[in-house]
């Protein structure tokens, strides 16, 4: 497995990624891209949903939640 891709995948997929050795370097790079895209997409979707939720919440509750989730 290409070492830079392995380093990138390790924190996401865990230390033991030997089962991915059958993937070519190109395929590993595709996996890396797909996972990075999914993480970005999820972060964006959750951020949008959270912003909308704050907007809809009653004021006092909004401030409490903002404090708790560190906004």
């Amino acid at each position, binding site marked *: 497995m290409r070492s830079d891709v392995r380093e990138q995948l390790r924190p*996401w*997929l*865990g230390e033991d990624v030997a*089962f*991915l050795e*059958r*993937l070519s370097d*190109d*395929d590993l790079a*595709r*996996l890396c891209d*797909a*996972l990075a*895209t*999914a*993480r970005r*997409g*999820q*972060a964006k*979707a*959750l951020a949008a*949903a*959270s912003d*909308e*939720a*704050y*907007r*809809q*919440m*009653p004021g006092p*509750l909004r401030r*409490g*939640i903002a404090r*708790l*989730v*560190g906004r």
Partner: protein
Amino acid sequence: MGADLATRAELVKLARALGTTPDGVAFAETLGAGDIRRLRERVVSTLYDEHRAAFRRVAAITRTLPTSLNVRIALRAFSPLLAARIASEMPPERAAELANRMPVDFLAEGCVHLDPRRAEPLITRIDRARVIAVVSELIRRGDFITLGRMLDASTEEMLSDLSTTVPDEALLRIGLYAESGTQLTRAMRALPAERLRAVIHSALTGAPDVRAAALAVVSRVEDDELRGRLAAYAAELDDATLTELLHTAVAEDAVTELLTAVAAMPEPARTRVLALPALRDSAFHPGSPNTSCGTTSP
């Protein structure tokens, strides 16, 4: 894609986990079904664990509020995505209490986003009638991947409910994506004999993808007696239908599943199937590129 049926089903599930299309994860095909599933489980852990701490804190707030207020806030302010992620971090009893007061379409959408590792204790605590309503909504949406995951979280009572309410074709499509062969076996076992026969007969006279799903289900059940019964029901069909099934198995790369089913047929049905002229086609001969299993000899 030239992958076998099980691998294709896993690629579809991996694509869902990554929010892309099956073509977008075609690179993983060489891993085979088992390792694609391992990869998906790691992907799910990564994505669901990433924002967990924040959801856990929001879930903690719900403990201080009455259920009715929580429901009002959730329906007014939370999307099903957000609600599902927060519910995944709540004590399951509390989350079920809220779920029992929420609209079915909101819950159905929420099921899509529920952390699969935490779904079981929640789903088993939701009212059975509500679960059935959510299942019906997901069937209406054609979301058999989510349903396959939900099957894992079903109790015997739920499986019994499902066996009487889910249409034949949907049962098989859910079976194709079922996470656990054991749960799939329980679900099929919950069907009365006549229903089981009808499911197999309607599937094998149906569309090619439903025929393939039926083959997947027959090969995935973990009970030899049940598999034998399913195969025997298939063998009751005429030669033309069984020939269509053979062609479907080749076209859908489900020859392994077909051979498992044929092997489970009682005699003389097995001999009858093996004598079908279609089996002389090169696709079924050993070494054929379309044949993923060695031989068709009795």
